[in-house]
């Protein structure tokens, strides 16, 4: 226990939050069970028709490397991030308006280093050499499998998209804010 009022208050809120979350889950499960027949029917219908949600990436495991190809550049950033997350790649996707030749292609990557406060305690932890762990061509992003478990900082992947009405496309490599990886 603690003598800090803030911590007592926070404990109460967290435990209440966990309890209410559990109740929400139970309610959702009951509601979902009631909907199973309808969902099954809708799923069968959706898979039999064209135009269903398609995966944004084709992800292949190739030895020590994971290869990621863009299959649906019109997918949302959230869908793309979720698919990468499922493959063990924790990254932020940015869809950037770009000139025609880079639409739907890998445009640049950046990996920010961790630093600052930990460096107060000694040498700052060094991120893996990104060139060794990540490679990109406009068609394929290669991520070394070891990278997925050993690197906890922010990885940003930029994919080119068509500009919307009134939007000016950026040219490559200006679209890359931090670090540009050549076409290699």
């Amino acid at each position, binding site marked *: 226990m603690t003598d800090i009022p803030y911590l007592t208050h926070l404990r109460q809120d*967290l435990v209440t939050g966990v309890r209410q979350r559990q109740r929400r889950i139970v309610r959702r499960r009951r509601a979902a069970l009631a909907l199973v027949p309808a969902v099954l029917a809708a799923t069968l219908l959706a898979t039999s028709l064209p135009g269903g949600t398609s995966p944004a990436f084709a992800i292949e495991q190739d030895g020590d490397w994971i290869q990621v190809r863009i299959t649906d550049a019109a997918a949302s950033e959230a869908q793309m991030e979720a698919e990468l997350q499922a493959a063990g790649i924790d990254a932020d996707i940015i869809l950037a308006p770009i000139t025609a030749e880079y639409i739907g292609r890998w445009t640049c990557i950046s990996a920010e280093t961790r630093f600052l406060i930990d460096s107060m305690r000694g040498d700052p932890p060094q991120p893996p050499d990104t060139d060794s762990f990540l490679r990109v061509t406009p068609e394929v992003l290669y991520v070394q499998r070891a990278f997925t478990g050993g690197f906890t900082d*922010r990885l940003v992947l930029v994919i080119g998209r068509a500009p919307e009405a009134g939007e000016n496309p950026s040219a490559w490599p200006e679209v890359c804010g931090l670090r540009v990886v050549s076409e290699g």
Partner: protein
Amino acid sequence: MDRTDAELLAGSARDPEAFGIFYDRHAERLLTYFARRTWDAQEAADLTAETFAAAFAARRRYRDTGPPAFAWLLGIARHQLHRALRRQRIDDRARRRLHVERIALDDASLARIEELADLAAIRPRLSAALEQLPPGTARAVALRVTEELPFAEVARRLGCTEAAARVRVSRGLRQLASLLEPT
């Protein structure tokens, strides 16, 4: 017999009070950890809240394979701290998922956190250490850490590239760390 941290985490979804017991074991230490790194009691409090909420979300990933649960919790804490420093704001997604509102610190908590983290003693030592750095390096650290400016702005004010600003801040912090190391 007391339940282990692993048992508490594993049972916390069905038994919310188990998460409360896990919290009781580590909250004060975690809050102190953050206070000593941010030198700001409210930021430390916000980071503590987000870290526990994130720990609950990640509880299934904890494996009781030797390292104590606090080390695991500290891993989440470091991640939160780095994100906060990079993005110039403290994440609140995990806390919001649990519908936990932000709590403003009351005076008693503020004073107790400062006392717990010994912040009053650290501040003069830090000021003295900053004065020992080369002026350019000290200014880079002050702009980034004290004024919390993004690196692009630090670079602009120093009249150098963003990469050079990052190097200066990193180098300054390393020098500060060695100056603040207990002898």
